[in-house]
């Protein structure tokens, strides 16, 4: 008859298992965390009468502190064959942190897109939004997990509607 000598298993095995579990949980959290992105909408989404005449409104998602992202933007245009670029007028919604309105300060002629850039805790986001006579052209808007490249902006500009055309 064989007698098996009882012995304690090595300490490394439970620790290894625990480490694997912790690593998997952390990976899961990373995977399910929302990416930092822009979300755009017509002015009614701001629920603020002061923005009723804005070109459009936007907010960021995926930033831990909605009021903290750094946001810049430019209106990029093509007017009578001449390329133009204007700093955007962006107004934060006082009552809704993280919601902003873009007030049109570009001419009512030519083709225009709005190029937004945002950063939050090391993450970046971009958006290229064609604007037509009836507001944003949602179907053609590009919401990006990075700042838009010059090529992306130029491509959007070429296909943007003329301000005098209907979508």
């Amino acid at each position, binding site marked *: 008859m064989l007698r098996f000598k009882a012995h304690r298993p090595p300490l490394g095995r439970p620790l290894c298992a625990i480490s694997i579990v912790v690593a998997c949980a952390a990976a899961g959290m990373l995977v399910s965390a929302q990416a930092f992105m822009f979300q755009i909408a017509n002015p009614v*989404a701001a*629920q603020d009468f002061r923005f009723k005449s804005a070109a459009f409104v936007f907010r960021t998602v995926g930033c831990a502190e909605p009021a903290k992202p750094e946001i810049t933007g430019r209106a990029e245009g093509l007017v009578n064959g001449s390329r133009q670029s204007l700093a955007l007028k962006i107004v934060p919604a006082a009552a809704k942190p993280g919601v902003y309105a873009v007030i049109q300060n570009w001419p009512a002629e030519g083709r225009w897109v709005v190029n937004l850039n945002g950063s939050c805790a090391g993450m970046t986001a971009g958006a290229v939004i064609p604007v037509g006579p009836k507001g944003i052209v949602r179907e053609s808007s590009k919401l990006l997990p990075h700042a838009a490249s010059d090529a992306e902006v130029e491509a959007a500009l070429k296909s943007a509607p003329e301000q005098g055309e209907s979508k």
Partner: protein
Amino acid sequence: MKIREHLPLVEAPESIWASIEAALEAKERRRWPSLRWRLAFAVLAISMIAGTLWWRVASRDHWIQTGANAGLTLRIGDIGSVEVGPNTRVRVVADRVDQHRLDLAHGAIYARISAPPRLFFVETHSGTAVDLGCEYGLTMDADGAGLLRVSRGWVSFEWQQLESLVPAGAECRIAPGGGPGIPYFEDAPEAFKNALKNLDLERVLDSARVRDTLSLWHLISRVAPGDRARVFDRIAALSPPPEDISREQALKLDPETLRRWREELAWTW
């Protein structure tokens, strides 16, 4: 020159003097209108001033009726203006800092208001348009049927327990004795609009786009309780609700849940 010494002297005929006098009198008349004309002008000026004053007094609690070819613009305090179209009957019910209210019997108005919500109201036979910071057109016929079309901001149209929230780009039919219908975006497909008009729920759900969740959101509180789940599920398929929107609470028509859900859906409108 000595030529004139050789010219004979001739006396001017009497007719010349008469014509000169007549010309002088005519010139005098052109400088100063006759007393008759001055009196007529004064009467006209006084009538116009009196008429304007009468209108300002009469328009408060008294009806304004525009003609077939005429309209006018009403100033609404410091918050905006209302264009009153032809063949329109309207009166000013209240004109205070905290409330401006019109009564539209029939016809068409276009309001441009820049103010916090719920300062400007337009009453009709079939409900009240409540400004939430907006521009809109409202057309009503004498029977109480009408159409609300919003250009900027939001308008709430309210009748008894019914409320339709109509955003820019959308319109809402108003039924006589029935209040506001389901609002819909003007660019919605005709099949969707017709299905909505005919209350064909099946077709409404089938033909709805993401943007038409405006209409579906309103439908959820107007269909039979047994149909609410179908409407909720269709909205969720088109635009997944945030995690904090409870399906159960929405089906119970919890006001806070529905409000938060609408505000989220507006980001897709």
